[in-house]
């Protein structure tokens, strides 16, 4: 498939410093994530067993499928996809918060999930804020969280992506979680 070739090619170029390749590949990955999310929604059964973080893996499989994935492209891809996933979620959460406030008379959704949604979408927005604050003085920790939570990467995968040891990933994550927890709690008061 030409698309596969394109993405791999673009990732490689980006990896060797091409800003142009980056500008091209991001919308592609973003679009794929959105499409897949939409597809999950359409099918109730898969929505029930839905593991959102699997999206990034699946996007990779769909977009960059090849027999011997070039490691660097893969790392890059996951890094990018995790970041985009976060963007996508925050954007959706913000929109939902807004809608909740300014909801008109038309089309009131039927599902009770809506009543829980504001709480949940707030978690996403809060987490995003906290992650930014964390990144200000320790970017690696925020990256670990992004990869693990939004990208759904395993500890080993995250270790490879960040070029650190799995043990370090574990330590970074623990401290980051404690820190984020405190930050989010204080944000609420």
């Amino acid at each position: 498939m030409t698309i596969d070739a394109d993405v791999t090619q673009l990732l490689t170029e980006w990896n060797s410093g091409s800003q142009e390749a980056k500008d091209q590949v991001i919308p592609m990955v973003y679009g794929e994530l959105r499409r897949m999310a939409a597809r999950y929604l359409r099918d109730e059964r898969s929505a029930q067993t839905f593991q959102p973080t699997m999206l990034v893996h699946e996007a990779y499989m769909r977009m960059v499928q090849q027999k011997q994935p070039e490691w660097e492209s893969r790392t890059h891809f996951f890094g990018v996809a995790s970041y985009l996933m976060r963007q996508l979620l925050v954007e959706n959460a913000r929109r939902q918060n807004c809608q909740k406030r300014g909801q008109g008379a038309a089309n009131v959704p039927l599902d009770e999930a809506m009543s829980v949604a504001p709480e949940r979408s707030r978690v996403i927005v809060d987490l995003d804020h906290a992650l930014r604050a964390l990144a200000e003085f320790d970017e690696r920790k925020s990256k670990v969280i992004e990869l693990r939570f939004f990208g759904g990467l395993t500890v080993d995968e995250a270790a490879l992506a960040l070029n650190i040891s799995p043990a370090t990933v574990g330590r970074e994550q623990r401290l980051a979680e404690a820190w984020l927890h405190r930050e989010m709690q204080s944000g609420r008061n």
Partner: protein
Amino acid sequence: MAAPGNAKRPELSLDRWQRVEELFHEALDLPAAERTGWLQSAAGGDAEVLAEVNSLLRNADAAEAAPLVQHLGPAIATLLAPPIRRAGPYRLVRELGQGGMGTVYLAERDDDEYKTQVAIKLVRRGLDTEIVLHRFYRERQTLARLQHPHIARLLDGGTTEQGEPYIVMEYVAGSRITEYCRARSLPVSQRILLFLNVCKAVDYAHRQFVVHRDIKPGNILVDETGDVKLLDFGICKLLQAHAQSGEDTLGAGLPPLTPDYASPEQIRGEPVTVTSDIYSLAAVLYELLTGAKPHRIENYTIQGLERGICETEVVRPSDAATDRSVAKQLKGDLDNILLFALRKDARERYDSVERFAGDLRRYLAYEPVLARPDSFAYRAGKFLRRRRGLAAAFAAVTLATSTGVAFSVRSARIANENLRMARQLSNTFVFDVYDSVRDLPGSMRARQLIVQTGLQYLDSLSRRAAGEADLRRELAVAYRRIGDVQSHSIESNPGQAPAALASYRKAAALAEGSLIRDREDASAGLWLAEIYQASAALARRAGDHKAARAHFAKTLELLKTIESAGPAGPELLRALALAHTGAGECDADLGDLEGAHLHFRAAVSKLEALVRLEPSLVAARRELLLAYSNLGNVLGNPDSNNLGDRAGAAIAYRQMADAARRMHVADPADARARRDYGLALLRLAQVLPDGGARERIAAVRQAIPLLRESLRADPRNTVLRSQLALANGFIREMQAAKAASGGLK
């Protein structure tokens, strides 16, 4: 334990922050009890570092107790997945469109076996649900009966958990007839041919006494193969009741309508008849042929609409068409046909879709058409001057009745005036006027008068109708309609039963002569069978079981004749099942349990066949469930007269419980399904043989929460209350038995 959310983060230098991290990880590896002491010394007197590490440690514990990911997973799922919307057992897949009355969705029903795509119209919130539902259940029967290759079927309906009424219809994937023709640049003759199929569908519905009321291109879809289907038949009327209480529609009291295609009488709020549909059909054809809409509406106020629709003359189609070669084709006959069908006064238009279509066919065949610009200029001199609303319609028909023949039509070519009057009477008068006054308080006298007047007129017409098959048919329809009206009022006026039966008898007598000879038309036979069935039900309600039994026998005889002619469709299967059920109940009333048993069994087999044939008909599934219940009752329900066959009853109740379970699983929010399931389980428990103790306990245990839940929703339901008591009694008995046997050991 409150998390320390108080202090701002201390601004630590990078090396002190690194120290915090080291201490944090080392402390985490220690048993919790040793941490504080160890940290005190390890921090070496740096109070800030110590405080930060302690704070982080506490948060680490809290974070472990409630991991972020736990919140995040569902949050992500919720955010990415817009809520799954449901309407009863249907899952709404995506929006197909929005209309004045609500939103239409593509939906799927998936339970254990089937996955069918349907279209669901979800009625807007905040409308008077009670009235809408009431109307809905009353009309559903009629609408579900409309089976025509060019009509999208009405399948089901109900209310969502939030109380919004919805209607389930056959899903048609196609484009609007106007777009279809434009995209393919179809020539005039092909557009007319396509349109003639629409006419067939409308004509068919009119013969079944259903007026569309909202014919417009959006309701006429053509699929890829060129197959045309009409949507939303009768839906407008179904939902009209609420609109009259709403204030957001055009003007007070006006049903939702589409001004571009609405007839003048609809704008004025006058009774809507078949000729209103003819007007709207013509408005659609006008647009199909000219590309322009027939009304020039300047503004959408009530005055603007009156001016544009009721007053301004429609532009001659040949003048409206921008394409010159098309304009040439329209000039003459098509101009005349369209302008005739678009007359402001409903009485001056074609009086049936068939005649309208006939003229179009004649045009295509190069034969002379009946519509002429000047030949229908009869004025309303003999008529009451048109007034608005019911009073005028009422007065007009009363006048017509008292003077015998009120109209004379110059053109004998079109109108058989008797037929026309019969139509007008049944369509406008009985159908609409009666309906309109029914809900008015204190309208009893008026209603009686309407029925009485209608009957007098029909009687006088039918004396003269000897040889005219068409008229006999129309009269039969009108008598039946009157019979329906009379039997509707039986609750408030029980003396009406013989009168209603007499109307049915007249309808049947007329139909037996004309309809039934029409062999190829099975629906005509079904129609007659319905009259028999209605008579039977009426007799049974009046307590005359023998007469009821005779009527049911007649119904079944007729239905079986139709059945022998070919494979049974859903209509016939359902009619057979209904008749068998009625006959079985009748037999049971008369003490003939064996007869009842055979009928109930037959009803079960017909309904099973129907559910196989039409898996998406929810109503049929429920009827099947009730049929199992009847069968089980007559076989071995200890609460009623039964044949003492407990094993047989257990089989039937097990099937009933199974059917109920499926409906309950498909829609856990459906209160009726929940109740059905609970009651079925309990019935089963009652008849299980003594050897089946385990199954009995299981059934009762399952039934109790279902019944309890149902009772909570409907606390005054005495049946539920007693059944729940019965279930609890079962449990106590079983516990006592267990204790007793335990005590003996």
